[in-house]
């Protein structure tokens, strides 16, 4: 009896996260997916068909027949969407790379710091999260604008005489993304480096590696899982980022998050914006799933 009960409990423990995924990920996804197959209309909600359970199963089936791929076709017809996707991916990729360049040394420094100092350093990385993301991005406007803190400083230091135009350019977007997502890069790399056995580095040196060679042959490859996790954690939200390009970017900056927002709010075209969101999801999910498959295969090969 007790055995049965414990089997039930252990099953329940597994069910909870699955139920969570079902309710908060899969169901919303299907709602968005369904809307992406609908047609826009002037109504509330602004799309057809709308299911009416009163019609019974036959009624639902009939509504399903009204689904169309028109919105997806539309996305291919207007080059704006393609450009927005490409530019989003490029901006996200460049920012991810920059975040890695800055984040890796920070994580490395933290992992090599005396054990007693590490909690404080960790706290300093997490600290910015305690203020609102939006406010921090607004703060960058104050720093980057032509008469902002940065230009004032550079002019008073005599380094430049004309203020630099940074705000409302892609540079400002890069700064914003790198700044906002840096902790997501630092933390996984730090955790990978921190649990690394120091004797591995000594072994590499013992076998003839200079400290730099030991880094590239041992430390870096071993931190790769952290690097990959950090890059995904930065790249994925950066592709769909809306707030940073909206506040810091210029009018010519094309990012899919902004496009989606415009479709949804300005045009009130829910079906097209849903299609935009679904395509964005596929762009992100397919390469990641493929990559993980390759990784899993490589891992199991040695067995």
């Amino acid at each position, binding site marked *: 009896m007790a055995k049965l009960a414990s089997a039930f409990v252990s099953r329940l423990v597994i069910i909870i996260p699955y139920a969570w995924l079902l309710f908060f990920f899969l169901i919303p996804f299907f709602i968005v997916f369904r809307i992406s197959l609908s047609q826009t209309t002037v109504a509330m909600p602004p799309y057809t068909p709308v299911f009416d359970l009163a019609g019974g199963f036959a009624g639902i089936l009939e509504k399903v027949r009204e689904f169309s791929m028109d919105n997806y076709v539309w996305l291919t017809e207007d080059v704006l969407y393609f450009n927005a996707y490409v530019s989003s991916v490029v901006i996200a990729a460049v920012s991810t790379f920059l975040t890695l360049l800055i984040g890796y040394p920070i994580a490395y420094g933290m992992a090599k710091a005396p054990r007693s100092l590490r909690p404080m350093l960790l706290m300093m990385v997490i600290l910015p999260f305690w203020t609102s993301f939006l406010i921090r991005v607004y703060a960058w406007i104050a720093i980057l604008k032509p008469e902002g803190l940065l230009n004032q400083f550079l002019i008073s230091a005599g380094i430049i005489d004309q203020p630099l135009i940074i705000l409302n350019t892609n540079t400002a977007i890069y700064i914003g993304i790198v700044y906002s997502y840096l902790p997501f890069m630092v933390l996984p790399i730090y955790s990978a480096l921190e649990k690394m*056995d120091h004797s591995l580095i*000594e072994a590499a040196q013992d076998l003839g590696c200079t400290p730099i060679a030991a880094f590239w042959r041992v430390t870096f490859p071993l931190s790769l899982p952290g690097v990959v996790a950090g890059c995904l954690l930065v790249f994925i939200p950066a592709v769909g980022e809306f707030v940073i390009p909206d506040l810091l970017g210029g009018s010519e900056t094309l990012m899919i998050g902004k496009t989606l927002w415009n479709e949804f709010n300005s045009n009130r075209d829910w079906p097209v914006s849903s299609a935009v969101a679904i395509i964005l999801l596929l762009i992100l999910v397919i390469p990641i799933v493929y990559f993980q498959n390759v990784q899993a295969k490589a891992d199991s090969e040695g067995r």
Partner: protein
Amino acid sequence: MKSLGSIRRSFAPWADPASKPFISVKNVTKKFGDFTAVDDLSLNIYTREFFALLGASGCGKSTLLRMLAGFEQPTSGEIILDGQNLAGIPPYRRPVNMMFQSYALFPHMTVENNVAFGLKQDGMAKADIAGRVAQMLKLVKLEKFAKRKPHQLSGGQRQRVALARSLAKRPKVLLLDEPLGALDKKLREETQFELMDLQQQLGLTFVVVTHDQEEAMTMADRIAVMSHGQVVQVATPAEIYEAPNSRFVADFIGDVNIFDGAVTSTEEGRVQIETTGGISVRLASPEKFANGAKAAVAIRPEKIRISRQAPAHAPTNAAEGEIWDIGYLGDMTVFHIRLKDGKVIKASSLNAVRAVEDPLGYDQQVWISFGEDAGVVLKD
């Protein structure tokens, strides 16, 4: 082929004043802040020697090994290897390799890539690397495991990979930090002999750090017993065991009964000691002692005889007691015997026959006795 025994038996370069040491540690001190890990230590290690640094944890043996490897720099003093002063030479330029206690195998590389690591770093030609790796894996009998990753190996196999990797570059000296510490007892004993054979085959100098005295006794040509950053005694295993130079060494290596006392008389090659427990002990000793000088007598348990009747030479080198505890170990039995003054001593006897008629039992009154050459006189 000459048997390993015949090579070993005649191997004693430390006794030959003409032979030059291969590694010379000269007055080396290493301090970590206020803590002195190694304290003005000097010792010589000879080519092809299997040298063990033995001591309890924190005695400085690992620090000394790490200084040989180059991971630590001496605070003062110098280390000479094959005529070259190692001061300021980083680990990656030293002709020594180390086998780490944790093995430190690279988890992201296969067994063969682990072994090839140092060779690749040296820019050896690809074909040569493959040949050397194959040779090394054959040496440690791991040919079939070349493509595996370290996490797919057992502890014993990992130990062999670590050994193969540290030998691949053909170092002049191999440093081994607790090489068998992570293995279970049976595997450890087998591996001890394999390491000895390997060292003889390759003709290398091995310096091994261990806290396991049995391991050191089995493998090493000479042992340096260390305590508090200093070498207490450097000698062959037999000398360390049979002729410890101090109470510390006698106590540290194996089991021992120590009787405190004072010298009552000395004659040519003999010394007479009265212990505080009232036993009069007569031992062979090359050293001379002043009458009344404090001295301690150290006698190993296996050198003590137990009998029901008083031996002929009683009361010299004999005492009465009562059997207090019996520990049956299979190959031998350890008796704890309580003497008249309350001191409990250990005596062991070999179980040479399977069944003994009328064996010794608890609470039995017995005599313990020992010969004149059974014990060692310790000065302190």
